[in-house]
């Protein structure tokens, strides 16, 4: 399983024989593209405990030499003030790379060089990949790699990672720097103001006198600067000396140091760049997608297209996979199982699990999730996602979230499981808890099918809309309430708005496939297990015994027939079966005519049934994913909360409807 593998993977350097190369760079500069180009398909992810951002690690061979590539998270700097920066910094210190490839965006050199100068301050050997050089050319920016190399004191290789240009030169330069002990790749450090340099010198002297080794193997200058910038971890490691240095520096020196680096970066960028940047054509698009008047209609149109894509392509795919399965594997499986185990309860259970379980995954899970991941990757790589997050920020704020949460909430309409994984775009645990709770309340395709197949079909579409409305209201109340109840405050939004880029189909497919694989490993086993459990309960007849203890709630409070309660309970295993099971059980109890729900349920009962089935905890795969992302306690609380809300709303509606 992918998760187990990543959990056991060490975040530290493992091999002394292989060359260790770290990739560092700002977000969205083509760093991951470069990583994919330089490595094969087998990518592992290492996570620090409690961190949602991981390090991607893959092997490669450069001229016969074994190489381990570590892709650090995309960051603007290496101060441990945010999760991604913390991981990037620790990845760098823990892996002790032989060389760091710093990927910089040629179209925004000044901002990108900040990270490079910080790397130089930190100490590792660095090679620059001057990426997106083609895009810079299109914006009539000409950057002189030789001048840049001279100014930084580092090798600079122009690259176009998307098309694989310049990669051989890059790996050659990196290998040379890694091999050379002549100081190549150490770069020219920024000279800070006299006041700062005096403090640095003082601290360096102090380190030379002190018996203790510098933590994390930092060179003295790097450690001194980090202390003056108020690096809390380092301050703690240094004890009292750290406290004094930090007290002197703290925020009062962090800003001047950052300002000096920015000034140096801007000066270097200016000196190495010729030509004034013409505003890219994408800028006009930008204005349209973020200005409220045109942006909101565009957002709605994009959302509508995603849903349409999901339902049409996903629906077609679902039909295709279902008919393929029914025509090929299903009969084969049936005869094999019956041949081996006869027609008893064992054979029945196996068929529920293997035939029914896989069919459900093919019909409900896979098609919608695959198409959704594709649409998501397309939107992300085009750069539109940030515009959506910008526009949605205000609404998300009501729930203590920020704009980026709109992505997983949209994903939830397909399937809750990947949506919960998607809450990783949020940075704090508080935000992720709220987002997960809301995701769970968004009707996924399976629950939408239950609502449409029961209420819409037998009662009327207006009533189905009412059910969706009530569920939406529950989500709204839950979001507002959680924002009030949970301790802490919402994080402020600080997000770079990337320029639009034409997405590369190859990369989109690769991203889709990678995410889909993670989903499959995490969810499929649980879906199958659920199907087996359901089959065993049904085939052994144990299922009917579960009905009695539920009666006070189901019959007394919700006013539903006892069989309905049973199917609600069991739908935790597979939500989309809530309706199918209801029909099966009703036929078993009331006879063949019961395939029409109206023969044994009133319209009001059908509405209440659909409401309860939709609101309470989606399914066992969702719970498993919640546990993985939030831990047991919060998952249990969210699950219990949805059950409470379902009973409350279901009961209230059951008692109110007859009065209208």
């Amino acid at each position: 399983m992918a998760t187990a593998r990543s959990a056991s993977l060490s975040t530290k350097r493992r091999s002394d024989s292989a060359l260790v190369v770290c990739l560092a760079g700002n977000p969205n500069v083509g760093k991951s593209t470069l990583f994919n180009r330089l490595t094969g398909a087998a990518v592992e992810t290492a996570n620090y405990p409690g961190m949602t951002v991981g390090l991607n690690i893959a092997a490669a061979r450069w001229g016969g030499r074994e190489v381990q590539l570590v892709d650090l998270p995309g960051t603007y700097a290496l101060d441990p003030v945010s999760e991604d920066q913390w991981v990037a910094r620790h990845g760098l210190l823990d892996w002790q790379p032989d060389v760091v490839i710093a990927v910089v965006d040629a179209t925004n050199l000044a901002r990108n060089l900040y990270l490079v100068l910080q790397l130089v301050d930190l100490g590792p050997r660095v090679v620059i990949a001057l990426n997106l050089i083609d895009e810079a050319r299109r914006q009539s920016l000409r950057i002189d790699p030789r001048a840049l190399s001279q100014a930084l004191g580092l090798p600079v290789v122009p690259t176009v990672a998307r098309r694989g240009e310049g990669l051989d030169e890059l790996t050659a330069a990196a290998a040379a720097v890694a091999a050379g002990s002549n100081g190549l790749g150490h770069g020219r450090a920024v000279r800070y103001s006299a006041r700062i340099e005096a403090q640095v010198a003082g601290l360096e002297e102090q380190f030379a006198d002190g018996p203790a080794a510098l933590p994390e193997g930092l060179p003295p200058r790097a450690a001194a600067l980090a202390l003056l910038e108020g690096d809390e971890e380092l301050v703690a490691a240094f004890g009292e000396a750290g406290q004094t240095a930090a007290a002197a520096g703290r925020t009062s020196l962090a800003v001047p140091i950052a300002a000096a680096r920015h000034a140096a970066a801007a000066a270097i960028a200016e000196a190495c760049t010729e030509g004034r940047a013409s505003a890219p054509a994408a800028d006009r698009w930008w204005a349209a997608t973020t200005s409220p008047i045109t942006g909101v209609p565009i957002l709605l149109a994009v959302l509508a297209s995603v849903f349409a894509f999901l339902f049409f392509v996903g629906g077609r795919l679902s039909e295709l996979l279902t008919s393929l399965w029914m025509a090929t594997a299903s009969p084969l499986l049936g005869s094999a199982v019956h041949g081996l185990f006869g027609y008893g309860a064992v054979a029945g259970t196996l068929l529920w699990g293997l035939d029914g379980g896989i069919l459900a995954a093919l019909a409900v899970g896979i098609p919608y999730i695959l198409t959704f991941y594709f649409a998501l990757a397309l939107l992300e790589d085009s750069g539109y996602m940030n515009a959506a997050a910008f526009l949605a920020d205000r609404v998300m704020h009501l729930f203590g979230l920020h704009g980026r949460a709109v992505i997983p909430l949209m994903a939830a309409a397909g399937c809750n499981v990947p949506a919960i994984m998607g809450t990783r775009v949020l940075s704090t645990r508080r935000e992720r808890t709220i987002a997960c709770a809301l995701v769970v309340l968004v009707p996924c395709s399976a629950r939408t099918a239950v609502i449409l197949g029961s209420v819409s079909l037998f009662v009327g579409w207006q009533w189905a809309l009412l059910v969706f409305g009530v569920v939406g209201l529950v989500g709204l109340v839950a979001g507002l309430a959680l924002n009030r109840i949970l301790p802490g405050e919402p994080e402020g939004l600080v997000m770079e708005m990337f320029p639009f880029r034409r997405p590369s189909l190859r990369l989109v497919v690769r991203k889709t496939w990678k995410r889909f694989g993670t989903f499959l490993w995490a969810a499929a086993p649980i879906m199958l297990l659920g199907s087996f459990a359901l089959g065993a309960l049904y085939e052994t007849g144990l299922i009917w015994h579960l009905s009695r203890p539920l009666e006070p709630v189901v019959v007394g409070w919700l006013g539903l027939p006892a069989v309905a309660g049973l199917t609600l309970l069991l739908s935790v295993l597979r939500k989309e079966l809530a309706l199918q099971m209801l029909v099966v059980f009703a036929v078993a109890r009331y006879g063949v005519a019961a395939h029409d729900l109206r023969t044994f349920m009133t319209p009001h009962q059908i509405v209440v049934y659909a409401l309860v089935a939709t609101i309470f905890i989606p399914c066992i795969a969702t719970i498993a994913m919640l546990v993985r992302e939030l831990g047991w306690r919060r998952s249990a609380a969210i699950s219990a909360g949805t059950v409470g809300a379902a009973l409350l709303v279901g009961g209230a509606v059951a008692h109110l409807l007859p009065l209208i």
Partner: protein
Amino acid sequence: MSLQSESREEYLEAIFKLNQQSEGATVGRVAEDLGLAAPSVSQMVARLAREGLVERDPASRILLTPGGRRKALRLVRRHRLSERFLTDYLDLPWDQVHDEACKFEHVLSDEVEERLAAHLGNPQTCPHGRAIPSADGELPDEAARPLAELSAGQKSTISFVSDEQPDLLRYLSSLGLLPQTAVSVEDVAPFGGPLLVRVGRARYALGREVGGKIFVRV
């Protein structure tokens, strides 16, 4: 301290605050701010004018004299230091400290004020991000406004960034949102949504609360 001098201080503070806004301080607005009737405000303003603390301009706006301004700034300093104390040491939420600080500010002696500032690490801003005047009555860049108050299309230069959240300050610094940097607002999402700003060749979406901590000059 007598009740009368306390109320005199309140007046000076209110006039100072209103003068920082574009409409300026008038009798009506002072009355509104302090929750008092206009005639009694009028009377008090006349008295403050006799004491040489305020003067009226031709448009009958109330202005502070240098002496009045010194007194007002002293009070603003005590108020904002008290707010910092209440949030940083007593863990009161920042949106609740204003009223409490209104009481604190009148009872601080010079010495307590000095010690308080030292203990708090001589903060530059109050929990709401407003600059704290220095002990000798200097207010760093009074004209600076929160970036969040700008509208789409406005260009500005960052004056300072509130230091109440050191991590945020450092994060913004690493992005290049630093004092003396030019920043222009390209779009403002409606209903208190985020701002879209351009810094150099990069664009950032900043939530309103973040934009409220960056102070700029237009």
